[in-house]
């Protein structure tokens, strides 16, 4: 086996819908090694968030159901663990932050209380010790005059400050892995930059690993060591960060990079990916990207492409990686 901290294999998750069920995550696998920052990138319906929530056992069941797969974390399969044990790992060994801190924080409890709760539960700290640690955590995540803010309620804080509180809660028990689902998406760009700085600092200090789920290529470029690109419930490509930007081999990754406007580019037209994202309830047959792909031939629609290993740590689920090798940045 690998030296991975988290090792996901063959994960498949379905949702019950009116007309039967739809596969949201389809045979997905990836690793997160100790101390590593892995980016999971994709657009709407790519299954990136569902994959993470499946691993954490946080999907409402029904309608969701994990059909198969494993998620080995520190030698144990999270997917087969009794709910009670998984709860003990969540919030302690694995921290979580989500896009909208207002909906993750409890509006009727002061923020200090919400950090202390996690410490009392997982670390069995007494009230006074938990309060002290809560102050230290708020201070650590950059909340000014932490001891006075302890009794503030979430609505008294700005969006950026609320996300800092979420990070304080997630890190209170010193987790080995932090799963962050679009943590900066709802925030303004200066606040996003501050939070990415903070997360980078915390990673360096604690040595924790991170799984960062995002739709934003820039956030990935700033943050990740390695990237997993998802499209329509499946992994399209995985690569070390620089390889992904310099020599992507899946046509979808190439399309995403071309479609993302940057401050440096001055050419008037963006490269586009034709068409729109597939309907998750009725994905196209064969390669799901084939209907939008410039390289697709008749065979691409015939069956799911097998993953090609292009180099160590670089794989793409594409039949035409020979043809896509000629890709160049704009």
């Amino acid at each position, binding site marked *: 086996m690998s030296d991975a901290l988290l090792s996901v294999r063959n994960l498949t998750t379905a949702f019950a819908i009116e007309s039967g069920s739809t596969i949201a995550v389809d045979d997905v696998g990836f690793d997160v090694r100790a101390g590593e920052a892995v980016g999971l990138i994709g*657009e*709407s319906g790519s299954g990136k968030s569902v994959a993470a929530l499946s691993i954490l056992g946080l999907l409402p069941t029904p309608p969701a159901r994990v059909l198969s797969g494993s998620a080995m974390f520190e030698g144990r399969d999270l997917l087969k663990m009794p709910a009670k044990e998984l709860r003990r790992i969540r919030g302690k060994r694995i921290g979580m932050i989500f896009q909208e801190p207002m909906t993750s924080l409890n509006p009727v409890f002061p923020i200090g209380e919400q950090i202390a709760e996690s410490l009392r539960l997982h670390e069995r700290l007494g009230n006074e010790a938990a309060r002290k640690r809560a102050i230290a955590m708020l201070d650590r995540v*950059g909340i*000014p005059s932490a001891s006075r803010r302890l009794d503030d309620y979430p609505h008294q804080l*700005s969006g*950026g*400050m609320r996300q800092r509180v979420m990070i304080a809660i997630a890190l209170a028990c010193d987790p080995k892995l932090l799963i962050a689902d679009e943590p900066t998406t709802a925030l*303004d*760009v*200066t*606040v*996003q*930059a*501050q939070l*990415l*700085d903070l997360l980078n600092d915390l990673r360096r200090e604690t040595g924790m690993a991170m799984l960062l789920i995002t*739709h*934003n*290529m*820039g*956030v990935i*470029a*700033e943050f*990740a060591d390695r990237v997993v690109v998802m499209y329509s419930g499946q992994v399209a490509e995985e690569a070390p*960060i*620089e390889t992904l*930007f310099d020599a992507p081999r899946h046509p979808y990754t190439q*399309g*995403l990079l*071309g*479609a*993302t*406007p*940057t*401050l*440096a*580019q*001055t050419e*008037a*037209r*963006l*490269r*586009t*990916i*034709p068409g*729109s*994202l597939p309907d998750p309830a009725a994905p196209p047959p064969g390669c799901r990207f084939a209907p*939008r792909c410039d390289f697709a031939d008749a065979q691409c629609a015939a069956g799911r492409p097998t993953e090609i290993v292009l180099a160590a740590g670089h794989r793409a689920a594409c039949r035409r990686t020979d043809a896509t090798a000629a890709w160049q940045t704009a």
Partner: protein
Amino acid sequence: MTTTSPLLRVRDLTKHFPVKGGALFARETGHVRAVDGVSFDLHAGEALGVVGESGCGKSTTGRLTLRLIEPTSGTVEFGGHNVLALGKAELRQMRRSMQIVFQDPQASLDPRMTVEEIVTEPLVVQGDLRGESRTKKARELLDLVGLPVAHISRYPHEFSGGQRQRIGIARALAPGPKLIVCDEPVSALDVSVQAQIVNLLSDLQKELGLAYLFIAHDLAVVRHLCQRVAVMYLGRIVEIGTVGDLFAKPQHPYTRMLLASVPAAHPRLRRTQAIPRGDVPSALNPPTGCHFHPRCAFATDKCRVEAPRPRETSPGYVVACHYAGELGESK
């Protein structure tokens, strides 16, 4: 700069929203200066980006320009006419030339109307279209925005997000406008779809000679689509100029912070400078003097008491900073 008179001329535009407090919010306890003395010109066929963070007043500026909300003070001239002095009928007439595209196409399209009805509604309301000519016009509009003409009888829910935004654009184009206020038109779209809409807007600008007031928080999109850009902070324009100058040599410290915050385009270009801590202050109680001074590394006593007046540092390039031009190049 062109010497012809601008299509749109906005001067000292101000909007105060009342703030209610007390028992059952019955009392007016103050006001928010959502837009606080904004001035700019927009020429025919030009795209002006308006950027800034939440609460900077960029969307309110767009709506004031079209008089969808009434300004507290200031002037808006469109094609030489004072928009704020127009009566109801005249304003309706004027709106043929001034249209808007909203952020969320889902929320701005009537789910019970077909695409044909939606895109031609502005013309029916104006009273100059019915029957077969309506269908013909709808076909032209769909074709113009790259939607299959065969889908003319479908309803909004049968389209994807990107297609719905195309419908919103077609509706804005229907009366043949000279100006379209685009209020975050691509913010809700996935990247692969967003690029299509950015290109479409760029093509339409050239083909039809449209002017855009393009309100966005994504600086890279503005860099691509616009010729000039205005940066807003707490209700005021702090810097305005061509995209080439402003993105290459930003002069206002806020513009510099904003640009420095944009995530890298490549992992080798990662930001090395930390962004100083701090949030945008509340518009309810903005800082004295220059609104940006509490977050500004260059702030002096003067900045704390005296609001800087916008001044031209080179022809057509305006910066509202006491020390514009004296701060050196940004890193």
